């Protein structure tokens, strides 16, 4: 079986999202569902419910009052954001114990992903984006395709990582040359399987350039910038230490202030430390 067919088979066999996610999606899709019904579904998974409360109370979401119940969390953050938090928590749990190769540590991988989630949301919030629901999730899942390779094609992926380091090329370029498929494409296929929102799938698929068909898409562009920022700040380890230059079209389109990063520095570090603690350590 060639590599592409092997990958397509892997995606077919790839784990589905836990039942709580599909149940939540069904309940939320029903316009007659009440907030209490959504809360009841979340409460069936006490571990997830407790983490959702901790994340909701973290500075990432900047809520002024303390959230004491899932009902309150839904009220302040909304259905979509709560659902996205549960997806993020479940996916991280699903892959936290993936086999570790010497070159790639899943904990460091998730630290990088969480950093990108935190920075994506911080920049979106700074820009005054009104619909921030998918920002955190898109950042966290932007490199999900790499996990597929790590989990199911460890030997081949070690070759990819070595090739990237030895030849000083991006992992994506090394994937393309050795596997014939990149983590951005594989990630999009996983996104399709998991029925992730289109905006999140676009961010997964196009975050390396930040452009979709040559045009700036706001969320994809912010994930592009956040990914580079997490690398600049050495938050976690995505498999290589390269720092790409941001796409100039994105600076022009987003028109961010010159001192954006100085202004956000303390928030990013603080949000990152707290989020890593909640998502990974306990």
């Amino acid at each position: 079986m060639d590599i592409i067919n092997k990958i397509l088979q892997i995606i077919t066999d790839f784990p589905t999202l836990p039942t709580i996610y599909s149940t939540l999606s069904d309940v939320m899709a029903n316009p007659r569902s009440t907030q209490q019904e959504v809360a009841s579904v979340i409460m069936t998974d006490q571990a997830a419910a407790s983490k959702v409360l901790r994340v909701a109370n973290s500075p990432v979401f900047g809520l002024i009052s303390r959230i004491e119940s899932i009902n309150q969390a839904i009220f302040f953050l909304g259905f979509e954001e709560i659902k996205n938090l549960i997806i993020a928590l479940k996916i991280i749990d699903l892959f936290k114990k993936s086999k570790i190769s010497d070159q790639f540590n899943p904990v460091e991988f998730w630290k990088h992903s969480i950093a990108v989630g935190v920075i994506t949301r911080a920049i979106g919030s700074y820009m005054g984006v009104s619909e921030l629901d998918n920002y955190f999730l898109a950042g966290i899942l932007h490199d999900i395709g790499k996990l597929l390779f790590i989990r199911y094609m460890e030997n081949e992926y070690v070759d990819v990582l070595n090739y990237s380091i030895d030849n000083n090329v991006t992992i994506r370029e090394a994937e393309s040359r050795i596997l014939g498929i990149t983590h951005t494409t594989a990630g999009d296929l996983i996104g399709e399987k998991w029925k992730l929102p289109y905006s999140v799938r676009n961010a997964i698929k196009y975050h390396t350039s930040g452009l979709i068909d040559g045009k700036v898409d706001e969320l994809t562009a912010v994930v592009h910038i956040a990914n580079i920022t997490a690398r600049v700040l050495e938050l976690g380890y995505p498999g290589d230490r390269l720092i790409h230059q941001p796409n100039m079209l994105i600076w022009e389109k987003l028109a961010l202030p010159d001192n954006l990063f100085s202004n956000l520095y303390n928030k990013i570090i603080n949000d990152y430390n707290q989020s890593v603690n909640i998502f990974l350590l306990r």
Partner: protein
Amino acid sequence: MSEIIQIENIEDNMILAEPVVSSFGQILIPAGSELYESHKRILKTWNIKVVVIKGKDSDQTGEISEEIIKLARNRFIERINWEPRNAIEKDLINIGIIKIAHSIIEKGKLSGYNK
């Protein structure tokens, strides 16, 4: 703990935690210098947007010495092969250097390194 502030917010007697450096790497104002309102104008002419000052709770171990900034800058420069094209990219690089400097200081504390 050091704090990054915009030059508009400079107040008399603030102490620079890190040197002000030109885009060519030349030190314009060394770390430890006292800042005054009058610095704002000259910093503007150098197109400097932010400075790193010592926080109110700063102590000796919170300082970032020129040597550490130099180490951090060298470590950072090894990882990029591009030049900043605008002020926001300079700002991005600046926080990268500050983060590395903080990491060096933290590691130094853990290993008993006392700079």
